[in-house]
């Protein structure tokens, strides 16, 4: 009986939608992992902004790193009869049951930032960045930047064995494959932190003839790059000129370094996963257009030419 009622309600919603009411009356539930990093906080802020821009009512649930909280939140969203659900899944497995419940109620589910190991028909689409591609953009930038000059690169890897570390390394190697003049001479883990990034860079500089032989440092995230920049400065070299600095993530602090000419380029891991998700949802609800199962976010390259201070000001308030 209850199910029939809900089904009727769902049918009614679809009827109103198809009769031309725009997405303005949409209510969307968003189950966020938590706020473990600055990037995650920025993603939450941007998602709220994107919802507001589109007139979508966003119901937000913070799972504090626990899958059980996310599943509870999703069940809550289903009971409230939301029009769609966004999930940033904390782990890759264990979602089948709750996704089936959402599917039975005809509520489309969109994954943000991470993918899961469930049958693909259980969700509408996944909006994520391509970590291999991020590394490739960084590598290609460097190849173009140095031209035909010989270039020894040192690499600061992320936490050993983590997927961004593996993928961003792989991507960078693909990016510089064509340029035989570029060689990665040293590669160590900096655990994605500033302290370790600085410590590892110090030892690289000592191991490579006082740093004069190093032409560029590639860091798997901006925090390690910020640490490396300090190490380069303390060794009496000029970061950005003597040793080029390229990294990934595009957090606000790296733009400050770029404005001072101490960092050269960063590849953005955009916190705006919700924008493309809402676009796909709109198209789906309005025209019944099934989106692709994977929507890749843009991995935008920022250099010193992109007015770094302006980007810094724009990003500062996002909660990074």
């Amino acid at each position, binding site marked *: 009986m209850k199910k029939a009622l809900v089904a009727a309600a769902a049918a009614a919603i679809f009827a109103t939608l198809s009769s031309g009411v725009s997405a303005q009356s949409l209510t969307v539930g968003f189950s966020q992992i938590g706020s473990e990093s600055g990037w995650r906080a920025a993603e939450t802020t941007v998602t709220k902004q994107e919802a507001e821009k589109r007139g979508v009512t966003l119901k937000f649930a913070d799972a504090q790193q626990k899958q059980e909280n996310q599943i509870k939140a999703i069940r809550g969203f289903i009971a409230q009869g939301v029009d769609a659900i966004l999930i940033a899944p904390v782990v890759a497995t264990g979602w089948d049951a709750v996704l089936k419940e959402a599917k039975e109620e005809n509520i489309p589910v969109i994954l943000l930032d991470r993918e899961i190991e469930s049958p693909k028909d259980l969700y509408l689409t996944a909006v994520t960045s391509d970590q291999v591609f991020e590394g490739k953009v960084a590598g290609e930038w460097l190849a173009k930047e140095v031209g035909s000059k010989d270039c020894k690169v040192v690499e600061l890897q992320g936490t*050993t064995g983590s997927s961004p570390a593996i993928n961003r390394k792989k991507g960078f190697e693909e990016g510089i494959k064509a340029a035989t003049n570029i060689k990665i001479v040293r590669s160590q883990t900096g655990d994605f932190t500033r302290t370790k990034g*600085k410590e590892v860079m110090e030892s690289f500089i000592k191991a490579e003839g006082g740093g004069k032989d190093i032409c560029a440092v590639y860091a798997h995230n901006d*925090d390690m790059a910020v640490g490396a920049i*300090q190490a380069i400065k303390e060794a009496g070299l000029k970061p950005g000129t003597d040793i080029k600095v390229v990294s990934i993530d595009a957090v606000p602090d790296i733009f400050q370094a770029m404005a001072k000419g101490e960092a050269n380029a960063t590849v953005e891991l955009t916190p705006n996963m919700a924008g493309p998700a809402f676009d796909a949802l709109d198209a789906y609800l309005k025209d019944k257009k099934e989106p692709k199962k994977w929507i890749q976010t843009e991995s935008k390259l920022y250099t010193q030419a992109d007015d770094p201070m302006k980007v810094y000001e724009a990003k500062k308030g996002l909660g990074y």
Partner: protein
Amino acid sequence: MHVITRRLRRLAPQLIALAIILGVISLVAPGFLTVSVQNGRLYGSLIDILVRAAPVALLTVGMTLVIATRGIDLSIGAVIAICGAVAASLITEGYSLPVVIAISLGVGIACGLWNGVLVAILDIQPIIATLILMVAGRGIAQLITEGVILTFNDDTFSALGSGAFAGIPIPIYLWLGTALIVGLLMRRTALGFLIEATGINRRAASLAGVRARFLIFAAYAISGLCAAIAGMIVTADIRGADANNAGLWLELDAILAVVVGGTSLNGGRFSITASLIGALIIQSINTGILVSGFPPEFNLIIKAGIIIIVLTLQSPAVMTLLGFMKFSRRRETLTHGTKEATR
């Protein structure tokens, strides 16, 4: 003279281990041992070891005392994060350097006293008592930094982490100075002796008139103070307070340094100098791995392997074996000698 040889004999296993490790690294990475002067300051991998060892060395000073009282302090990594966050937030609010340092040290001592209350007064087991602050501490630090890496631009404060005085980096002064003051306090007064008595048998010490409760309090307070200094160095070094990562797992490195230094986790006799050499051994391994150029997948295995070797060589079983071999050799020469004489 006799005192010096006796002390050297106590420190011999640690010193030999350190020398062997430095020797092996210099074989793998040529130029490892060269120290030069650059921009008016000492420069080289050996200097890096002394600078980078600062946080663990400072923690080790406090940890040695705590372990000597038969306790353990798991919270110091989190105390680093708290004190770093306090220092960074005070600096961004424009307080002067002495105020920042005084308040940060005060917060560190307060953290230590909290542990002291739990251990000395409530008699909670140290490992559990300090686990509370270990878990809660990072949360407190995150509350202070509001979950972001709190960065600042203050050249005088950041000198604590990356500055130099008379060519020698300031962190080296800080940890050597702290160790010297605490060491003199322990060995030039009866404090060290009384702490050892407390660690060996608290009840007996109390009955003999030792104020064991006060001494345990003091040990945890000093541990908190050392962690506060370490916290400021770590924060000044990267010009920012990273509540998630500052001092992460350093308490374990400090415990390891104390054990490598030959102080028993069962409390009692302790040597701050030996613990500090232990800290230098750990940092030499870390820096050595970085300059050697091995892929990062090997880092932890190499570190664990070397530490197993060092600990095995110091283990009571091997010591007994060595003693036995020496003894039997002496007896051999003795019997040999008597045979010669009778002939």
